[in-house]
C-alpha cells in the first residue's frame, strides 16, 4: 500500500494543533503538528513533509519567515497558510510569495481539502 502523504501543521494555537490533525487523519493523511516554526525546523519532518499548513502570525518566527527559511535551504515544500486575521490583502500577498493557498480561520473542511489537493501532486 502506498505511503500516505505527510502534512505538517505549524500553529501556536493549541486548538488548531488538536483539531486539524484529527480531521486530516480521517481523510487518510499522515499528520505531525508543531507549536512553533523553530520546533518544526529542528525536527526530522522538515525533510519528510509533503505539504505544510502554517499559521501566519506566530511569536518569533512567523509563517512567512518559515517559508523564507525553507526556501533559503532549497526546500520547495508546498505551503497552505492559515490565519485568524480577516484582512483580505493577506491572501494575494502570500500567494505572490509562492503559497498554494491562504485560508482564513474559520475555514470549511472542503476549502481545506481543496487546498491540500492543490498542494499535493495528483495521486
Amino acid at each position, binding site marked *: 500500500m502506498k505511503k500516505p502523504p505527510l502534512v505538517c501543521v505549524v500553529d501556536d494555537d493549541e*486548538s*488548531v494543533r488538536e483539531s486539524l490533525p484529527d480531521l486530516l487523519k480521517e481523510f487518510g493523511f499522515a499528520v505531525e503538528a508543531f507549536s512553533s516554526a523553530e520546533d518544526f525546523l529542528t525536527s526530522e519532518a522538515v525533510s519528510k513533509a509533503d505539504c505544510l499548513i502554517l499559521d501566519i502570525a506566530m511569536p518569533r518566527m512567523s509563517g512567512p519567515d518559515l517559508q523564507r527559511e525553507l526556501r533559503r535551504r532549497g526546500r520547495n515544500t508546498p505551503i497552505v497558510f*492559515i490565519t485568524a486575521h*480577516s484582512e483580505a490583502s493577506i491572501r494575494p500577498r502570500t500567494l505572490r510569495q509562492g503559497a498554494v493557498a491562504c485560508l482564513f480561520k*474559520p475555514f470549511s473542511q472542503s476549502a481545506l481539502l481543496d487546498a491540500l489537493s492543490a498542494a499535493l501532486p495528483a495521486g
Partner: protein
Amino acid sequence: MAIDFSRVFDALPGLVWTAFSDGRADFVNSRWCEYTGLSVDEALGEGWQSAVHPDDRADLVGAWLSFTQAGEPGELEARLRRFDGEHRWFQFRFCPLADEDGTIIRWCGINTDIEDRKRAEEAQRAQEHRARMIIEGLPAIVTLMSPAGELEGGNRRMLEYFGAEVDELRRRGLGHSYHPDDQGAVVARWRRSLETGDPCEFVARSRRSDGEYRWLRTVGVPLRDTEGHLQVWYLLSTDVTDQTWAEALLAGEKRLLQMVAQGSALTEVLEALCGVVESIAPRSLCSILTIDPDSIRFRHGAGPSLPDPYNQVLDGLVMDRYFGPCGMAANLKTQVIASDVATDPRWRDSPWPEMVLGHGLRSCWSTPILSRNDEVIGVFALYQHQPSEPTAAELDIVSQFAHLAGIAIERAEGDAALRRSEARKAAILDSSLDCIISIDHEARITEFNAAAEQIFGYREDQVAGELLAEIIVPPRYREQHRQGFARYLATGESRLIGRHTELTAIRADGTEFPVELAIARLPTDGPPAFTGFLRDISDRKRSEEALDKVRAELSRMARVTSLGALTASIAHEVNQPLSGIITNASTCLKMLAAEPPNVQGAQETARRTVRDGNRAADIIKRLRALFANKEAAGESMDLGEAASEVIALCASDLQRAQVVVRQNFADQLPPITADRVQIQQVIQNLLMNAVDAVGDVEDHPRQISIATGWQDADHLRLSVRDTGAGIDAAAAARLFEAFYTTKSEGMGIGLSVSRSIIENHGGRLWAEPNDGAGATFAFSLPCRSDGDASDAPVSAPPAAADSRLSGVKR
C-alpha cells in the same frame, strides 16, 4: 487581221483580255490560260470569275460592273488562282474601246502580278501595327512630332490626357498646356532640341483634361532613317506628380523647419508654408488660422492667395462649428471636407457659403492643427475654385503641412511663453518674499535674489560662485548636504527635490533659523542646475507646532475610538476558537460516518467543540464588558477590575508571547470617575507595549507586573512593569512624542494619546527605567470627585511611599 492581233495579245507580257460592254469576257490571251490553267472556253463570259479568290470575288465583280456601267477606265486589285492552286495578287487595269459614235463596244484589260509588292506592303503594315501597339501599350504619354516640331499624333493615353483629337491639339499648340510658370523653360528647351536634333528631357506641370496640373517628366528622342535623316520625334511623358510632390514636400518641409529653427516670425513661416502647398497643389488656395488664447476666436495666420476681404472676415471670427468647415474642424477636432460649397447642406443656414462663393471659391478642406498635447491650436484649409474632392495624396500633403503648421505655431507660442516667463521670472525674482537661490552642477551659487540678500545678510556679488553649503548650511549639516548632492548627481535619487522640506539654515551673522525648502531641477540641457525656494518659517513654525499638537491629538483620539479598528481585533480573537469549532465538528461528523462509527473519537472532538465554543463566548462576553456603556463617560469604576478585564481580553496574546502577568492590586481602593473604555485602552496599551518589550527576553522569565495603589492622598496609580531591555532616560522623554504605531493584531493606542487621555482625566502618565531589567510605565488618576464615591468602602491613602511598587522611582 484578227489573228494577227490575237498573236500579238498572246505575246504581251501580261494577262490580257477583252470583254463586251456588259462586262462578259470575249477574249483571254494564252498567258491568261497558262496562268489560271483554264481553257479559253472556260474563261469566256463569266467563267473568268472562277479564277478570282472567293474572298475577293464579290467585291471585284461588283466594282468591275460598276466601271462598265460608268464607262470609265479603272484599276482593281484581287487575287487570282494559279493553275497549281496558289493565289497571287494582280492588278486589273482596263480601258473602254468605243466606236465612232462613242458607244463602248469592248473593254480591253491587262492583269499584272503585284504579289511581291503587296507582300512588302503588308509586311510594312504589320510592322507599323506592331509599332503602334507598342506605343499604345507603353505606360506613358507618347507624342509624335515632325522634325519641324509639328504635332503628328500620339497614343491613346496622350489623347485622353489632353482630352482632344490630334487636329484640335495641333490647333491649340501643346506648349500652352504647360503651367505658366513652366511654359517658357519648356518651349525654349524644345526649340533647342529641334535645332540641334539632340534628345531632350524636362519636368514640368502640364494641364490635364480635367484642368488639374500634373507634373510630367518628358523625354524627347529623335528617330532617324538609315541615312541619318530625322524622321520623327518621340516624346515620352510620365506622370511624376506624386514623386515630385514627395520631393517638393521634403524640400518645403526642410525649408520651413529651418525657418522655425531660426526663429522666423510666425506670419512669415505660415505664409511660406502656404506658398509651398500652393506650388505643390497648384489650384489650391491655402489658409491657416490660429486660435486666440481664449480659445474662442480665430486669428488670421496666413492666406496669401485668398482675397483680402475674406481673410479679414476670418480674423477674429468666433469659432462657431455651424459657421463653416473651419469652425467645425476646430470644434470637432476632425477633418472637414466641403467638396462643393454650393450644394453642401451643412452650412445652409450660415452666411459662409454665400461669402466664399462670392469670392469664386467652391470647395474648402479644413484640417485641425493639433499641438503635441493633442489640442486644437489652429486650422489648415485648402480652397479651390471648383468643386473638388481631395485625393489620397492631397490628404497626405494636408496632414503633413497641418503638422508643420502645428510645429510653427507651437514654437511661436513657446517663444512668446518663454519671453513672458523670462519677464515674469525677473519680476518674481525681484519681488519675491521667498529667497530664490540657484546653483549649478557643482552646487555653486548662480542666483541670489533680493529676499535672499535680506534674509541671509549677504549681497549677491559676495556669494556668487561660492559653494551653497558654505553660505547657508550650518556647519554640522554641510557634510550631509555634500553627500546628498553627490548622491543625486550619481544616482538621480534625492530626498529634497520635488518636495517641501523643513531644514535649518544659517545667516551671515551665524544665527540659525528654520526654513521651508523646495528645490526644482531646471529643465535645461547640459549639466544640471537647481533652483531652491527658501522661506523663513520661524514664526510659522512656532504657531504651527502648537496647532500640530492639537491636531495630532485629535486625529489620534478619533482613531482610538474608531470601532472599525476594534472590529478587526474582535474578529481575530473570535476566529481562533471558531476555527477550532468547525474543524472539530467536521472531524466528529467524519468519525460518526465511518463504518463502524468511531464513537469514542467523535465524543472527544465534540467535547473540544464545546470547549472552543465557550472560549469564543467568553471572548465576546469580555468584549461586551469592555464596550458596555461606552457612551457614559465619567462613570464610577474600579481600577483593578478594569485592569483584570483588560488582562483577560489579552489572554491569548499573553499566552502566545509566553508572558506571565503578575497582578498586584491593592485592596479596597476607592472608585474613580472616568471613561471606562478610554482608561482600559490606556491599560491595554501599556500592557501590550510591555509584552513587546519582553518579547526578546530569553535569559530570564518574561514577566510583567500590573499593580494598583495610592499615588498620593488624592490620586490612585496603576503601573505596568516589564523586564525587557528597558529605556534610556533620553528616549523616555520622547516616547510620548512619536506616534506609536499599533500592531495589526492589537488595538493598542499611542502613548501620546494615552497620556492625553490620562491628562484629560486630571492625571499624569510617565515612564521610568527600573533598577533591574526593564522599565515601568505608570499613570495616576484623581480618586475623589466631589465625594460621589463616599459610600464605597475605601481604604485611607497611606502617607508613606511603601505601597509603591518596588523599583519604581519618580
